[in-house]
C-alpha cells in the first residue's frame, strides 16, 4: 500500500477527482488550469508548513506543477492517469521537493516524533474572542507551529489545515494509517506544549 497511488481505500473527506488527471493527460483545454486552481493554495500552504519560507514555498509549488504537468502529459499513460490518486500524488511530489530543498540547506537538529510520550492533550485555544484577541492568537499559533519539528508541522498542516483524510495523508507521507494516528496526536501535543510555554493556554 505504501507507495501505491492507484486504488486503495476511498477517502471520506476528499473531493472526487472527476477525471482531472485524465483531462490533463488528454490536454483538454483548461484542464491544467483547473488543476492549478484547485490545488495551488493547498500545496503552497503545505510547502510553507514544511519550509517556513514564502519564497521557497512558491518555488517548490512551481516546480511541483511543472513536474506534474510533465508526468501527466508525457510520462503516464491514460490508464495510469485514470487510476491515479491525484491529490495525495501532488502532495507527495510537493513534499519530496520540500525535503530535497531542506536537505540542501542547513540541517536542523530536530527530534523525531516518536521520542515524545502520549498523555492527555490538555485544553486548547478556542471559543469566542474579540478581533484583537483572535489576531494575537493567530500570531501565537503560527509561531508555536514554526518551532515544531518539521514532521509535526507537516502533519498538522495536512490534517487540520487541508483536512486531508488519514488514508490520503498515509499515501502522501508513506506510512500506515495506524502509525499516522499516533503521530498526529503527538504533533498536536507538541503544538499544545509550545503554546503553553508561551503562556497561551486558554481554558475552553
Amino acid at each position, binding site marked *: 500500500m505504501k507507495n501505491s497511488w492507484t486504488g486503495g481505500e476511498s477517502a*471520506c*473527506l476528499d473531493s472526487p477527482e472527476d477525471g482531472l488527471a485524465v483531462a490533463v493527460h488528454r*490536454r483538454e483545454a483548461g484542464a*491544467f*488550469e483547473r488543476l*492549478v*486552481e484547485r490545488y*495551488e*493554495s493547498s500545496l*503552497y*500552504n503545505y510547502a*510553507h508548513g514544511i519550509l517556513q519560507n*514564502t519564497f521557497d*514555498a*512558491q518555488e517548490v*509549488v*512551481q516546480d511541483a*506543477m*511543472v*513536474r*506534474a*504537468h*510533465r508526468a501527466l*502529459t*508525457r510520462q503516464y499513460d491514460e490508464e495510469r492517469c485514470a487510476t491515479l490518486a491525484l491529490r495525495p500524488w501532488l502532495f507527495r511530489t510537493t513534499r519530496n521537493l520540500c525535503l530535497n530543498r531542506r536537505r540542501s540547506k542547513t540541517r536542523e537538529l530536530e527530534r523525531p516524533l516518536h521520542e515524545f510520550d*502520549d*498523555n*492527555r*492533550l*490538555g*485544553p*486548547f*485555544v*478556542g*471559543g469566542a474572542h474579540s478581533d484583537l484577541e483572535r489576531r494575537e*492568537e*493567530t500570531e501565537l*499559533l*503560527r509561531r508555536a*507551529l514554526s518551532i515544531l519539528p518539521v514532521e509535526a508541522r507537516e502533519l*498538522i*498542516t495536512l*490534517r*487540520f*489545515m*487541508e*483536512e486531508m*483524510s*488519514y*488514508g490520503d495523508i498515509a499515501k502522501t507521507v508513506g506510512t500506515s494509517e495506524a502509525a499516522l*494516528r*499516533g503521530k*498526529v*496526536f503527538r504533533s*498536536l501535543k507538541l*503544538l*499544545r506544549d509550545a503554546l503553553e510555554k508561551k503562556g497561551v493556554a486558554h481554558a*475552553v
Partner: protein
Amino acid sequence: MRCRNVLTRIDALRTNELAAGEAQEVHEHLGKCHDCEESLNDVVALARSVRSIAIKPPKSMRASLTATDRFDVVDAGGRPIFVAFSNRGLRMIHTGSSEEEFRTMYGERFGRELVRGALPERLRRQVAAAVEGEGVDRPVVDLEGSEFEQTVLGILTRIPRGEVRTYSWVAQQAGRPKAVRAVGNICARNVVPFVVPCHRVVPAGGGVGNYAFGSEVKRALLEREGVPVDELEEMAGKGIRFIGSRTTHIFCFPTCRDARRIRGDNRVAFHDEEEATKKGFRPCKRCQPAAA
C-alpha cells in the same frame, strides 16, 4: 480500550474515519473517562483554530503557473527559427527543427504547452538582429533559473559582436571565479541562443569550444561576426592570451576592438597578466582582461 489507544483515535473519530467497531469502543470509553472526553473537545477546538492560520499564495503565483506561452516562426534566410515568448519576453529560440520537435522540447524543459501566436514587433526585431549576428543591447527575455544563472546570462549580453571572452572571465565577472564549469553549463543550457550570445564565450586554451548546434556552427557564427578565429587559435597555440600596445602601455583581450587597432610594430604579446603588469602595462578598462 485504554486511554492511550483512545487518544490516538479521537481525531479520526471526529471525522468518522474509524471502523464501526472501533468507533463504538472509543465512544464507550469517552462516556466513562472525563479526561479523554475533554481531549476530544480540545482536538475539535484545535482543528478549528489551526485551519484559520492556513496561508494563501501570492496572487502572482497563479499567473506564472497557468501562463500560456506562445510561439511563432521567424524566417531567417529560408531557415525557420522557432521562437517561444510570453508577455514578459523571449523564452526560447531554436533553429531548423519541426514545429512538433520544438513544442516537445519546450514542454520537456518548462512543463508547459505552447500555442501559436504572433511575435510582437519588438521581439521580432531582436530575434532578427541576433540571428544576423548583431548584438542585442537590452534583450527582452523571460528566463527562469538561479540568481547566478541570471547574472551569467546578463554578462554574456555585454560581450560585443566581433569579440570573444573566456569561460573563466565570465565566472570571474559573475563573482565566482571557480565556477568555470558552471558557466559552461549555463551557456550549454542557454535557451535563447543568438539573443544571449553564448557563442562568444570560448575556452581559454584555444579553439572555439562546444556549441549546442556544433562547434562548426559556432566557428562560422564567430567568423561572420568578424572574429579572426584562425588567428586566435594560432595565438592560443603559442600560449598568448593578451595583446598590449607599446604606445599606451595597455593590454587587452586579443579580440577587444582597442587591441585590434594596435599597429603591427606596436603590438606586444603576453602569456599572462603577471607578465604584462611586470612590464608596466595596465589592463584595458573596456575588455577588463585582468579579471580573466
